[in-house]
């Protein structure tokens, strides 16, 4: 199923029949997803639906039992995570995995070093990114005591520094205050404006419905619905899955 944002882009990520079991548990069953370049896609579903597992599969941290993953038409399921990053897949994690043993700037630097092996040049790039987001003032401090909002932003900056074309954001705004959420929405829109395709996992319905152009719904490892936010909000199967939660209205 395709969604045509402006009709001119091709598919950046294609999942065909992606299946994964852990012991007797079917984490993902026959997932088929097609994501267009430049889109902002929301991935939702109740807890345990398999969303993060899917992210792990796309980014290379988990292997599949069956299926295909194509990035820009290229089959990537045999590639290690770092090779996928070099192809242009970036990600953040459910609980931000910041390098606590180095400064904020150095964190972003690691991302930048993917594009240029010159440390000084990469430091400039990293600084630029921090400046864009008003975090340059804390560039030299250590991230240990940073509040959650800053850590999430830092993680995004770090991924951004590696020049991804597809960015997987896992729980983009969980733990953030409304004001911080607005900042994050701002950041996400900026990322999209740069042409980066975004795949976002989030539980806060209002947020995901507002920001996504397309939504994919998972439940118990299966894709149960897919469509525009309006379509999804009306979709009975989806509403059932969430047991009629009020947040679905937008």
């Amino acid at each position, binding site marked *: 199923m395709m969604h045509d944002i402006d009709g001119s882009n091709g598919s950046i990520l294609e999942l065909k029949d992606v299946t994964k079991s*852990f*012991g007797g548990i079917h984490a993902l069953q026959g997932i088929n997803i097609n994501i267009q370049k430049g889109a902002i896609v929301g991935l939702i579903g109740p807890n345990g639906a398999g969303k993060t597992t899917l992210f792990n599969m796309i980014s*290379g*941290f*988990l*292997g599949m039992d069956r299926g295909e993953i194509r990035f820009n038409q290229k089959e990537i399921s045999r590639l*290690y*995570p770092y090779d996928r990053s070099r192809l242009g897949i970036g990600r953040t994690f459910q609980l931000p995995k910041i390098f606590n043993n180095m400064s904020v700037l150095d964190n972003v630097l690691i991302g930048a070093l993917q594009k240029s092996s010159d440390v000084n040049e990469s430091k400039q790039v990293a600084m630029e990114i921090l400046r864009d987001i008003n975090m340059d003032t804390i560039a030299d401090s250590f991230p240990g005591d940073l509040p959650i909002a800053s850590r999430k932003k830092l993680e995004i900056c770090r991924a951004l520094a590696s020049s991804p074309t597809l960015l997987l954001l896992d729980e983009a705004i969980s733990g953030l205050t409304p004001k911080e959420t607005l900042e994050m929405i701002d950041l996400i829109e900026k990322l999209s404006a740069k042409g980066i395709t975004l795949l976002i996992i989030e539980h806060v319905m209002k947020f995901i419905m507002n920001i996504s152009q397309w939504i994919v719904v998972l439940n118990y490892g299966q894709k149960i619905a897919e469509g525009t936010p309006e379509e999804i909000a009306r979709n009975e199967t989806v509403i059932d899955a969430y047991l009629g939660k009020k947040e679905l209205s937008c």
Partner: protein
Amino acid sequence: MEIFIQLIINGCLTGMTYALMALGLSIIFGTLGLINFAHGDFIMLAMYGGFLISLCSGMDPYLGLFIMLPVAFVLGIALYRFLFKRLIDAPEESHIIATFGLSFVFQYGAMLLFSAEYKSVSTDYSANVFHFWNQYIDYPHIYGALAAVILIALLISFLHYTNTGRAIRAVSEQRRGAMMIGINVHKIYAIAAGLGLCCIAVSGVSLITFESVHPTIGPHFNLLCWIIVVLGGIGSIPGTILGAIIIAVMEMMVGYYFEPALTTFAYFVMFLAILMIRPSGIFGVKERRA
């Protein structure tokens, strides 16, 4: 040929005791997620425990278990509360270094307490030998295997048929999930630690009846148990038992056909081989290398 069979039988029997030792490790590692490099030293201490009880009371060390088992269980809980709990939240590297340091404290503390001589226990049956089909098997090994089988059976029943046991298994597999359905994780950790130490206590007692103890044998048993756990597959009880038997049989073979000292070299080679071919072990969950 007879020797060959003898070696295999001895290997299987000793393997059961090894399996018990390794299970102690597996429980603590699997449930708490704690990497304990002082495990072998706990075994060493258990062996001394058996020795002392036998020395002081003249009883068979197995009878001493009536005292040692409860002590071991309580000790496990105490260890959890005062040490393991702090380590669990720290990164894995800290587990390794901290327990490595602990290992030294135990080794050299034991050396100061017990001196560096080799000690062992002789019971009325030490010299007795079970004789069938031209094979000679000594009783200590038989009793050791028996004790191990009994305890392992008890353990498996506990894990599968009691609520606490099932809770332990749940926590091993999914800590967060278990917390969500209301399992008091700390209580489970403490019990698991206690159980682990019980396994250690029993295997220590068995060992002292057919091997000698020395303050620095800890690292040897430590390596042994870890290799068994990796070979069998982390988190798999049948795997651990099978792994233990394989290792014990290999030990007998290498020791007889080559040289006893070379067994450690054999472990290393086999360990590297396992890691390169199938790091998840015999029955472990096969996971993709990233």
